């Protein structure tokens, strides 16, 4: 170890205490991002300590990647530099929860599971029904910018995030927004942190509005012979007054994957679901909540709409059956990763009216690549496309890289926006997971320089290598 590195290590120990600094290479393997291993990991006990770490890193020009449960670190480009893992899992306090006001302030390291346990005691919840929910933290979820099947009704974190406290690239603590449900004082800087992978700052706390949990819910699955029919049902629902909480369309291959055993690695037990996904069929999944009369009517009308759209079957899920299906909807991406480690998973935002054209183009890409594909669509206009591969070797990577260009083109052709949500590191060496920068990239670059003048926050991970 160089003298500088030794002194940096001593500084980290001085800030967080020796027992909260990890330097053992084997232990550091757990903090790798795309195969890049940091030189140290530090677990600060407070936002002030975290700020000290970033300040020290800025002074020493050491690159920092903040993390929580490390479930979403696969998102983004390969870090160009990575010396310190800033593990925020000890920042796990609920700072303020006012159930009567339906508002909440939490530290970044709180896990979603813990949080929802707390909220549940007051009949409330946070609609962050995201992948790895049993382990993921609030900070990581916001920084990763992941969305959820509940997006149909509740939107994304952007829609219920009230404010954020963060640490900029110089180690200064800054905040924006407020803790009340409405505030237009100052710029909404907190929105910039969503999905930014910590490249503009380390999120240390966040404020949200919470939502009443529905005491009762129901669910319905409709099976179709074609994507066209399933999408016809989506359109009819969109044109109706019905208000499902979730509205997802799954390709037959995704349905087949949902039928498989639920991976233990996801940290929850989940019963079988194969019987709900008949082979070769597209599935539309709708979750409902609210008063019994409201749900009854919605079930009735959804069933009728499904029949009009040509459904081969409609299943109303019972209370024991729903969790197994909902968990799979939420964990669709981790499911793909678990069974197909060589897969590339694209997240494509598209106007709902263009779903069918896009699906056609993507299916062709799969055929040309000679690989199976799996698709999961959110009704609001997001299509998760997986080009499946079990292996991660050179051959697979070559064909994935070729297909990648075609996927970006297919998305652009229908006015959509594609990014690679997840893929093996080997593939990241060949492609740009964010696609080509857009006309607003110059502004983004200038903003990055303002938040992180030394370029030490997760360098290389974000759009255009930011």
């Amino acid at each position, binding site marked *: 170890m160089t003298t500088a590195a030794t002194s940096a290590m001593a500084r980290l120990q001085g800030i967080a205490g020796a027992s909260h600094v990890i330097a053992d290479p084997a232990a550091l393997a757990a903090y790798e991002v795309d195969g890049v291993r940091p030189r140290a990991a530090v677990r600060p006990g407070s936002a002030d300590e975290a700020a000290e770490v970033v300040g020290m890193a800025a002074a020493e020009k050491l690159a920092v990647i903040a993390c929580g449960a490390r479930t979403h670190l696969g998102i983004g480009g390969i870090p160009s530099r990575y010396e310190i893992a800033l593990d925020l899992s000890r920042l796990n306090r609920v700072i303020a929860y006012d159930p009567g006001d339906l508002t909440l302030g939490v530290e970044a390291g709180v896990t979603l599971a813990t949080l929802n346990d707390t909220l549940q005691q007051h009949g409330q919840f946070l609609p962050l029904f995201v992948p790895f929910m049993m382990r993921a933290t609030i900070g990581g979820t916001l920084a990763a910018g992941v969305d959820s099947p509940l997006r149909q009704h509740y939107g994304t974190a952007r829609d219920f995030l009230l404010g954020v406290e963060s640490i900029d690239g110089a180690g200064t603590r800054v905040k924006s927004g*407020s803790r009340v449900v409405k505030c237009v*004082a100052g*710029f909404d800087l907190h*929105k*910039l942190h969503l999905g930014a992978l910590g490249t503009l700052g380390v999120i240390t706390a966040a404020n949200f509005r919470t939502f009443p949990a529905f005491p009762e819910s129901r669910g319905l699955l409709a099976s179709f012979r074609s994507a066209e029919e399933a999408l016809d049902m989506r359109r009819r629902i969109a*044109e109706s007054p019905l208000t499902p909480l979730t509205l997802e369309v799954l390709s037959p291959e995704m349905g087949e994957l949902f039928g498989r055993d639920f991976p233990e690695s996801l940290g929850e037990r989940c019963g079988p679901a194969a019987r709900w996904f008949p082979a070769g069929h597209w599935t539309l999944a709708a979750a409902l909540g609210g008063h019994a009369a409201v749900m009854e009517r919605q079930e009735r009308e959804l069933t009728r709409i499904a029949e009009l759209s040509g459904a081969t079957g409609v299943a109303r899920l019972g209370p024991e059956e729903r969790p197994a299906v909902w968990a799979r909807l939420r964990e669709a991406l981790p499911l793909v990763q678990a069974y197909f480690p060589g897969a590339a998973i694209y997240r494509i*935002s*598209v106007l709902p009216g263009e779903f069918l054209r896009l699906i056609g183009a993507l299916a062709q890409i799969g055929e040309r690549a000679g690989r199976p594909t799996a698709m999961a669509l959110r009704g609001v206009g997001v299509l998760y496309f997986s080009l499946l591969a079990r292996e991660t070797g050179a051959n697979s990577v070559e064909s994935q890289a070729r297909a990648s260009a075609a996927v970006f083109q297919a998305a652009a052709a229908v006015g959509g926006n594609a990014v690679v949500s997840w893929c093996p590191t080997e593939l990241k060496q060949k492609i740009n997971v964010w696609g080509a920068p857009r006309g*607003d990239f110059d502004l983004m670059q200038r903003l990055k320089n303002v938040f992180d003048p030394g370029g030490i926050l997760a360098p290389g991970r974000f759009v255009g290598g930011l």
Partner: protein
Amino acid sequence: MKLIRELQALLGRDSVLHQPADLMMYEYDGSVEQARPDAVVFPRTREDVVAIVRLANRESLPIVPRGAGTGLSGGALARRGGICIGFSRMNRILEVDAVNQRAVVQPGVVNLDLSRAAEPHGLYFAPDPSSQKACTIGGNVAENAGGPHTLAYGVTTNHVLGLELVLPDGEVVRVGSRTVDTPGYDLTGLLVGSEGTLAIVTEITVRLLRLPEAVKTLLAIYDRVDDATQSVVEITGRAITPAACEMLDGWTLRAVEAYAHAGYPLDSAAVLLIELEGLREAVEAQAVDIREVCTQCGAREVRVARDARERELLWKGRKNAFGAVGRLSPSYYVQDGVIPRTKLPQTLRHIDEVCARYGLQVGNIFHAGDGNLHPLIAFDIRDRAQFERVVQAANEIMAFCIAAGGTITGEHGVGMEKNELMPLLFSEADLAMMRRVHDVFNPRGLLNPEKVFPTTKSCGEIRVLPVAGSGAAPAAPRPR
């Protein structure tokens, strides 16, 4: 005059105002704060805007974008003079895409006009500021405007997906897109609510919502203000989510009733105007819950609007309330603080007590469901001593909101009215970061100068400026 001639050559003579008599119209917005621009121009295209901006840059003149001038924080006033860009001629709805529930509009489109254009498709634009018959979507974007129904549907930022911008140096950039997500930093989210200090918006892509199947409007009538505020606490606490939950106190509703004849009960201490929307069954069930809560909290009566006409009258009264108050008082000052909804009863009591102590008449008409207060303090601008007391009372109310964990503005914006208050909410580091972000877009500070950020070093010196009642005081001297 050379600049005026150049602007005229660029836009046509009928698109440039520069005579003092013409400019007077533009030295106000919703406030009696005066600031006269040197010229007002009316571009028709994005290219016009770019050319105007380039000229202003060459001359180092401030540029201030302006919609309908209905803002309540001085956001559209030319505080340092310069060129005011009026968007009244960029008022085309470029597209209503019913299949995908999107619309693309120019900034000068009037808020309500968009909902009217979308209505044949069963769609509407959700943000509904009280000024929606006049205010523009460009202004809504600048201020991140709210409205009664934002309780259920969110404010402007929740409905804007993409923007076309002219940066203060004349460069044109598109941020966001028509799809729900766009890769990269959320510049759209940053721009909405930036009060025209970062860029000039020349095109807006918004999300449209489906019109609800059923709407029911309830009027809960109270003999005590406390019972009304406690009802709001209970409604929120029991997680009943109406589409709107507005409160009018007795003084305000009497002013409103004299003007609107909407059926507000003249002898009550307060009413809650509650709207329920959604599926028929959901609306019916919620109406039962709301009635129960309000009755338990002491409402003497809960009425249901019988038909669309009754409903519209009630809302007409609510949305024109500021104007109605203008009939009673030469001037009034309206605040926009937000508090946690659990603290509504004590906050209203505090407002009452403060105004009584200063011998001031106050009315309360506000978005109770959001905890977004609008205390309206009546006064006569010619009475300087009284105005001083208004300022002091406003100071105390704002301090109380902040101490309660709230904020200084829920929807009206900071503008030039509350910019000196910003240090009460934000640290020097917070403001320095916002300032650096500002400078990324607007490094010369020519675009809408002296807004949002404090201009003095003195922390927390509240410089409140009264809002004129409609048809109220003649051009008043700037209060100091």
